[in-house]
């Protein structure tokens, strides 16, 4: 038992080490400042994917309710950092994006209004989802009314195909996940599991497969289409719209009004079409849509105009990706 624990910890440490090695490799190898962060993100996402497979194949499984609590606590402070940098499903979409770029197909944009409606829609989806056990209970009172069991019925029982719409939530919200183990690798990650387990044709399953197919194709044409309404992305960063919670988000984008020329690059490159970075005049950018993927900061052509701050300290600044000359400190006047 103790040996297993040590083994698990060692594996995790190895994974983290792999991540750090990848990050360093990218920093050394990628000199082009306009795509460095994008490559970094791929490394971190890949490590994140491996970490998830690892976590779900642990015996005994970690009670995921704890993960859920931790996840919401983290979102409160870091916004949707997870969505931009770790989420394995986003990784799948980013790979599709790479494929699209390689095929030289242009991306499509959603109309701004639709985008905003989808963003608001995610709150509706998650509310319905959280109320689902109650609905089940009304129609078909079960012998056991524990919420966890109800959730399990929703996710594994006859309603399984329809609950696909909340699938990226599964690892976080539900204290139980269906497992699919091939060889020694756990494929319980939503999409893979769904595609393999929903082959028998019933109307619900056809719906499920069609849904998976459309989102995958959609993500190919529209960048990060899922992230625009993903219910798991319900962000407590929404809180920063209220003054009382002003200090709550620790990780946020800051814009220097004086240096900004409103050239519009930040608006165009955003994979989820967030307009707030461009629209807001300066200071702390308040938005619950942004995933902090830092693409806008990476491509902003003016030095120090956009920053990602952790607390009060900038962790990543927009820099002149044309590479600035070395500024000699003593050259400055006093």
């Amino acid at each position, binding site marked *: 038992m103790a040996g297993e624990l040590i083994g698990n910890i060692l594996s995790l440490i190895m994974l983290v080490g792999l991540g750090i090695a990848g990050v360093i490799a990218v920093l050394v190898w990628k000199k082009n400042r306009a795509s460095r962060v994008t490559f970094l993100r791929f490394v971190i996402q890949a490590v994140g994917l491996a970490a998830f497979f690892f976590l779900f194949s642990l015996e005994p499984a970690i009670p995921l309710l704890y993960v859920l609590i931790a996840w919401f606590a983290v979102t409160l402070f870091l916004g949707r950092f997870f969505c931009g940098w770790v989420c394995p499903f986003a990784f799948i979409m980013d790979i599709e994006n790479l494929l699209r*770029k390689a095929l*030289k*197909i*242009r*991306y499509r944009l959603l109309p*701004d209004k639709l985008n905003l409606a989808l963003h608001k829609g995610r709150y509706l989806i998650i509310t319905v989802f959280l109320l689902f056990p109650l609905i089940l209970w009304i129609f078909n009172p079960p012998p056991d009314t524990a919420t966890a069991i109800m959730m399990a019925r929703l996710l594994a029982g006859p309603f399984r195909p329809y609950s696909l719409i909340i699938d990226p939530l599964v690892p976080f919200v539900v204290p139980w996940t269906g497992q699919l183990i091939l060889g020694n690798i756990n494929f319980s990650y939503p999409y893979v599991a769904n595609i393999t387990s929903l082959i028998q044709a019933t109307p619900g399953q056809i719906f499920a497969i069609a849904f998976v197919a459309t989102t995958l194709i959609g993500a190919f044409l529209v960048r990060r289409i899922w992230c625009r309404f993903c219910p798991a992305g319900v962000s407590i960063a929404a809180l920063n719209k209220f003054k009382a919670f002003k200090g709550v988000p620790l990780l946020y984008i800051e814009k220097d*009004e*004086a*240096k*900004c*020329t*409103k*050239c*519009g*690059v930040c608006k*165009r*490159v955003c994979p989820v079409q967030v307009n707030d970075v461009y629209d807001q005049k300066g200071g702390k950018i308040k938005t619950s849509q942004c995933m902090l993927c830092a*693409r806008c900061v990476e*491509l*902003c*052509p003016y030095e120090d105009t956009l920053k990602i701050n952790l607390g009060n300290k900038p962790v990543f600044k927009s820099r*002149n990706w*044309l*590479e*600035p*000359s070395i*500024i*000699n400190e003593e*050259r*400055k*006047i006093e």
Partner: protein
Amino acid sequence: MSKNQTVEQRYLPEIQRKEIDELKTTVKGASQKIIADNIARMKKADSHRPDTMKYFDDIANLFGRRQQEIEAEKQKGKKIIGYLCLFAPTELISAADAIPVRVNSGWYDTSKLGDRVVPVEVCPVIRSTIGAKMIELSPFLEQSDALISVLTCDGMTKLSEILSDQKTIWGMNVPRVKDSTQSLRFWSAEIKHMKTQIETFTGNKITRNSLKEAITTSHRATKAFRRLQELRKGNPVIMGQDAMLVNQAYSWDDKKRWTEKTEALCNELEKRVQQKDWVCSPDTPRVMLTGTPMFWPDSWKLPALVEEGNPKGIIVADEQCSGERILNDPIGVDEWSMDDMLNAISERYLMASTCPCFTSKDGNEDRINWLLNKVKEWNIQGVIYYVLRGCMLYAMEYNRVKKALDKINVPVYYLDTEYTREDVGQLKTRVEAFMELLNARIDF
């Protein structure tokens, strides 16, 4: 005058061939003298000018090396496409294997000829360009096979019409409110239309690769330009007029060669910085120019006065579409697909611009922010607001700029002048008085 000779001249007067030739010889001779004189004065102002400036002196001769080069390219069948305003997407021109040159005129003498076509109240840049066309003076204007005219100010709008008597003109509409989606959509459509027009005219298709190449070339140029600007931030290592000439030469020089030479200049200047070899005393008042564009060669009268005066100042930055605005903003391409590149080009030319032809509810704040940021970063002690009589847009924005700069306690001096050399004495007094003021402020 070749192909349109039979076309009725709707604006331009009919001038005898003999008269044209006579005038051209006189004005050209005078202009060559002025160019040589300007360079001589620049050399005098800085006793040990960087060696690399030799190249730019050479290129600065509008009737010299560059004209012959373009002529040679033209003989080989390349098209020359001129542009009258900074909004013209030069990357598209280069991508279609044509040569972009800016054809705005800086000759004082020709502005008097332009008076025959338009009233004196009109902006002298416009009058001078018309005059240059009348006597076929400007080498680049004559060589260009087509002109892109962007309808920004009133002068530009009619100038394109007047020049269309003799040239193929492509007008581009600029939306006057830039901060809106529909404006951008409209401007993108203009850019896409311009792409097809250039393609049909040159017969070369703009491909993904050629456009990428053109954009990367201008990225490199911006990089070199920013390096030079970075060097001007500290103690002065280069005279302002030299740097201004370098920046402006980009608009007619070969882009790649310009980048190389500017990098070489920066290398030289960096060495000087290490040796603490300043071009003038670090206490010299640091001045920024803003306002109406100054075109080489004749308009160099003001920068020369600032840097030769007694007491003198040093120009460390400018906000003019003949200077830093040419290269300040790079094209931010997200994906190297045709679609995204064109979008990036339209955004760069429309939204990043600080031209006063735009109106917005926040009072053209982009321009104010640029000025304030420059003042802070370049440590500027005084701003000269240069306005040519007749340039309405810049003149009308003066108060906005003055109020903003007053807030941070930086003096602004409104300097209005004309395309004439008669007021040099008077200008000298005015500039020196301003420098005196700046000096007094530094001493306190």
